[in-house]
Each structure stands twice: as C-alpha cells, then as structure tokens.
C-alpha cells in the first residue's frame, strides 16, 4: 500500500478548552490536488498549521509522507505558503527567496528563475516596498522552487491579480502533474473547482465531507428547464420544486434525475436544459444554514 503524501488521523486541536479542530481524518495522495474549503474560523488554517508541525495536536496524528508532522523528514518534504505573508522588510525579494529556499534544504535554481519571470516579480525591490500580492508571489516562488513533494497552500492567491492567479493555476497543475501533492485552502471556489480533484469541506472544526467535485454536485439539487407542455411533474420522485415558465417549467431535483427523465420520456418535450450546481452553490448549500443562525 502506498503511503499517502499527507495524512491526518483523528486530528484535533483545542485552545483553552475551545475546540478549533475535532477528530479530522484526511489523506492526500501523491499527485493529487485537494481543495480545503470552509468559512472563516472553520479550522482550515489550524489544520494546515498542525500538518506543518507549527501547532501541536491535542488529539490524533498528522504525518507527511509517513513522517510525523514537524519532524526533520517531514519539514524537508513540505513547502508552505501562508495567507498573509510576513517577511523581513529590509531584505530584497531575491534575498528572501534565497533565504526561504535555502532553509528548506534543496531547491531548483533554474525553476526559481523561471517562476520569477512567470510571476513577473521584481526581485531587486525590498520587501517593505512590496504590495501584498508581491509578497505573496515571493512566498509562492520560494515554495514552488523547492519542488517539495507536499505543498500546503493557505489562501495563496488572496493578493494576486487575475493574470497572476492564472499563472498560479498553471503552476499548481504542473506540480500535480509532477506528482506533488497539494492541499489548497481557498475562498476562490472557481479556483478550487478548476484545480482540485477532490474537495474537503470543514465546518466548525469538523470535516463535513471529502469528495470529488462531481460527487459533491450529486449531493445538491439540480435544475432542469423543460420546454413543452409536460403536465404536472410535482409527484415525480426527487422533484422538490416546479416553477411555471412561459413555454414550459423549471424543475428542481434532489438526488438522481432518473425518475424525472423516465417521466419525461412519455411527454412532449421540445427542449431540455440542465444546469449543474457550481462549487459556490455547493458551498452555500453546506454553509448557508449555519451562517443564518
């Protein structure tokens, strides 16, 4: 059996009696890009910091490629980008990248230079003169240049402009293609939808679900717009809501659309359109009730 690139088992963390993360189980395989979603304060950063060994778990274990999180071996295998990057203001971008990559132990100097060009970073500027996005670029370049087997990214594009966000996406896809495992915490759901094979959703410190994006979609309602005089569909299994349109109906279906399609087979349908739920809608379906409480 292959050792997961990243593994959390029963991972929990309490701060002064308040549970920040509770019994979290998660695995990320080599070459896999996993999105880590949740509202603010859900426990995403706490989980990542336990995987880095920066926080000591109250319960459970975290490991990187079979090594205890925070151990020398684990540190050598992981690279990290924080959401709000704080660096030494007097160092230049080039000096900071050199420091961070050197501390990691190994890095690809050619790839580093390529990344500097792709992210359009001026490395001669001192960190104190960088915008938030440029500081983010420095951290991203340093992390990616290490070619670490595991990348832990905590809202890494929160300061990047759309062009740089595209560059970031390319780099993450390339990293996954090279076999690097990526755990990506992000609020940009389109980004997660584009990059990630699986998504882990956390709420109030508890992991709600880990599944592929397609599998997630099956969990939420799908809308069908049907043109034609199809009659009453409200009694069909799975149909939650029917809304009349000028030339047909809009039907919201929960679960499998099979019964609806079977019912439509015998009716005069001139057109049928479906719209899959976006990750944003999936996200809202998971978290909206909690946010209203």
């Amino acid at each position, binding site marked *: 059996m292959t050792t997961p690139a990243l593994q959390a088992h029963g991972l929990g963390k309490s701060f002064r009696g308040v549970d920040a993360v509770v019994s979290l189980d998660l695995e990320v395989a080599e070459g896999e890009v996993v999105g880590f979603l949740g509202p603010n304060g859900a426990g995403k950063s706490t989980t990542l910091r336990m995987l880095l060994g920066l926080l000591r778990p109250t319960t459970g274990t975290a490991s990187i490629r079979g090594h205890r999180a925070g151990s020398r071996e684990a540190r050598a295998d992981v690279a990290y980008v924080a959401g709000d990057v704080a660096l030494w203001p007097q160092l230049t971008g080039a000096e900071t990248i050199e420091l961070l990559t050197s501390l990691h132990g190994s890095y690809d100097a050619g790839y580093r230079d390529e990344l500097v060009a792709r992210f359009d970073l*001026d490395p*001669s500027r001192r960190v104190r003169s960088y915008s938030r996005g440029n500081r983010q670029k420095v951290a991203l370049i340093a992390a990616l240049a290490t070619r670490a087997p595991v990348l832990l990214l905590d809202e890494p594009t929160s300061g990047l402009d759309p062009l740089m966000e595209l560059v970031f996406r390319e780099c993450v896809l390339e990293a996954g293609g090279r076999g690097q495992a990526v755990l990506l915490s992000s609020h940009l759901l389109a980004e997660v939808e584009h990059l990630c094979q699986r998504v882990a959703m956390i709420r109030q410190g508890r992991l709600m679900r880990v599944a592929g994006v397609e599998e997630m979609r099956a969990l939420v309602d799908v809308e069908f717009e049907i043109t034609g005089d199809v009659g009453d569909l409200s009694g069909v299994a799975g149909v939650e809501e029917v809304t009349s349109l000028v030339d047909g109906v809009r039907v919201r279906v929960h679960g499998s659309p099979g019964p609806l399609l079977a019912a439509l087979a015998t009716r005069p349908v001139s057109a049928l359109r479906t719209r899959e739920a976006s990750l944003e809608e999936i996200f809202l379906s998971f978290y909206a009730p909690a946010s209203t409480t």
Partner: protein
Amino acid sequence: MAWRQVRTSTSVVALVLVGGVRAIVATYGASGGARGMRAILPLLRNPAVEALDGRVTTLATAGAYVQWKMGAWLALALAAWGALLATRVTRGAEDVGTWDLIGVAPPGTRRAFNVSVAALAVAAVVAGAATALGLVLGAQSLLDSVLYGAGIAGVVALGVGVGLVAAQVSAPRRSASQVAMVVLTVAFLTRVVADGARGVGSLRAVTPFGWIENLGAFQNREPGWLILLFAVPVVLVGAARRLQSRRDVGMAPFARADTSRAHLAALHSVGGFALRQRRPVTLTWAGGLAVVAVVMGYLTHSLVAFAHTDPAYVALLMRWGIGALVSVPGFVGELAISVSLALALFSLAMTAVVGADGLAGRLDVVLSAASRTRWILAAWTSTLLAAVALAAVTGVFVWLGVLLGGARLSAGHVTAAVLNALVVVPLAAGFGALASVVAPRVAVVVGSALLALSYVVAVVAAPLHWPGWVSAASPWRYLRVVPPARAGVTATIVLVAIGVAFEAVAVVVFARRDATW
C-alpha cells in the same frame, strides 16, 4: 491603540525612575552628604567630568546631586525613549499599514495623529511625575522636585517632537528613528562642548540638554527655561502635523531606496541569517561604545592622577566600594563592569528578536522548514559572538584612549577587563531567549528593567550597607573588578551555567510549544 503601544514601556520607565532616583538620593547620604561632596567638588569641576556628566554648581542637597549624577545621561536616554516611541506609533503604524485602514475611516489619519500625540504627551508627563515622586520620596524639596520633574517631562516631550518630525520626513521607521537619534546626539554633543570647553557656556542656550541644566532645580531656580522646554515640542508637533497633512500615507520625502543589489552570502543557513540579522544593530552599538570607550580611556589618566592628590577622595571611593578607581587598571576594570551592563542589555534585546519575529508573523514560513531548536540556538550563539565583538571594540578603544591620555595599560589588563565584562552576557542572552518564547510582548521592556535594576542594586548595596540577600540575586554582585583583581572562577562558571540553563529551558519550551504568538 497608540496608548496601548506606549503604556507598557511608560509604566516600566516610571517604575525605574521612581526607584532609581530614590536610590541615588540614598547614595548621597551614604557618601557623606554635603560635606562629602565638598571634598570632591574640585574633581567634579574637571572639564572632562563636566563634559560627560554636566556642569556642577553645588551639590549641597541630594536633589542637586541627583540632577547632576543622573541628569545629563538620564535626559539623553529619556529624550531618545520619547523619540523612539514617537516613530513607533506614527511611522511604525504606517509601515505596517495600520494607517491605511485608519485613513479611510471618518476620523482619518489626522485624528490618529492627534491621538498618538496625546498618548505620547501622557508618557512624557508620567516620566516627569515619576522623577519628581522619586525625589519627594527621598525627602527633597517639593518645589524643586516638581521643577526638575517638569524639566524631565519637557525633555521627553522634545524627544517626542523630534521623533514626530523625523517620522514625517523619513521612512521606514528605522530610518526615522536614526534621523531622530542623530538630531538628539548633536544636541547632546553641543551640551558636552558647552560644559566641557571654557568660554562657550552660552551654547547651553541652544540645546535642550543645556536648558534642563539651566533650569537650576535645587540650586538657583530659573523656571523660565521651562518655556523653551515646552514651547519647542509644541512647535515640533505642529510642524509634524502640518507635514503629515501634506503627504500621502506611507510616503516620505526622504525614504530609503526601495531597491538593492542582492547580497546572498549569509542567507544559506540559519546561523548565517542570525548573524546577518544582528549585524546592523551590532555595528551601531560598536560605534557608540567606541566613542564612550575612547573618551573614558582618555580621561583615565587625569582622574586617577587627581585621586592620588586627595586622600579624602580616596577615602570616599573606598567607602563607596570602588577603591579600585585609584589605579589605571582598576579604573578600566570598573569601566568594564559598567560596559557589562550595556552588553547585557544588548544581548537581551538581540535574543528577544526571536519573539519579535514571531509576533510579526515572520516565523511561520521559516519554521515550517527550519528546526526551532536550531533557530533559537542560532539567535543565542550569534548574540554571544556579537557581544564578543562589541567587547573587543570597547577594549581596543579604551586602550587607545588611555594611551592618548598619557597613561600606560598592558594588553593583558585590557583583555582581562573585557573578558570580565562578558561574564554576564550568556546569562542575559539566555534570559532574553527564554523571555522571548514565554512572554514575547514584554521580553525586552521587562527584561531590560530587571537587568538595570539588578545592576543598580549591586552598585548601591555596599555603600548603603544593605543586607547581603538584597543584592544576592544580582549577577553583578559576583563580578570582581578585573583588573586589578582576578576573576572569580566559581562565580564565572556559575553565571555562565545559569545562562546556558536559561537557554536550554528556552530551547525545550520553544520546541514543545505551539508556534503561536
């Protein structure tokens, strides 16, 4: 917000002022009071001594003695403190982007500036009140105590004014602080020249450090100088406010260049980076210690020669427990003990950098790659190396000063003196490391206060005939005057071992705790 940034150091400064002033009042009595002082007045009126410590008119009361003994250097230290507080709460807030947020809110940066000024004004008043309280507790004249306390408040306010203007014209905060320090140093040197050179005493009228001397508390009372001490800060605050309203947030007319050629040499290891990180501060300290060392070295010959002409003075020194000052090696040995306090404060601040970096959020990324143990050990060892370099610089310049002053001093004596000054360094560095991982927010302020207090206790315990247990906790109690004495091997080993133990505990705590700050 601004008050939160200044309240801790203001509280500590106030406590140190009350305690320190009270202790100096006590040493006056223990030194024979007015009669004892009369015996040494000719020495104190030596131009070199007046240049260093200020003009001596009369030491007929303990209050006058406090004003002379602490006055010049205390005023400089407090003005520098005020300036550093000012650059911190204004330019520092701009550097980290706080004022970007404030600027868009209805009150705007103008209100933030006014609130900062108010907080700094409170700090100045508290410092002045603490000084006056220390004097009153020592049974000194209330009127003179208040007059001198007001002068101290004015000096702090002046430092604040200089810092505020520097923060408007220079960026980042470090540059603004340096500009303010240069201005205050020039003002102080003007006072040194005015007091030290004959015929230029009128120069005291152009420097705030001369104004507080001219105030004449406990002597000839000239409260009119208070007008300058308070009017100039008001003008400076007004100028800073005007400059601030005319520029963009975060900008400055004289900002340090934002681009630089990369210097990668010391960035490939934790240890290399630790050394590099401490290099700028070490160089600044080396410059300051070199100046003090060469001046004190130069004065050594005349001060020692005077002592031999006056048996009463020698007797007084013996009573104070500093009889070693009657020989050149002994004078240098005593000087090295004073330098040891500076080295201890430096070491504490340099190891506490770990906590400061953690609070700023800079350690998250590096500690996800580097070992925490290695990081904190590198902070300690690089601090020790920097302190050794500072001691070496001090030794060389003392030796040079002694030679320039016409005395002789062997290299062996200088080496022994600076090695003795280093004995407390591992302890202070270890304490700083431990404080930075246990209580990073107050590590420097509280640690510095404890070191300064334990030094003062060790110095005044003997002349005040305090019981042994009072000074037993002070590391300086166990330092001998080397030369002429030989270092106590057991005491040296114990002090270094305590420092190593502090560091070991810091390593264990840092390795086991969460990396949250």
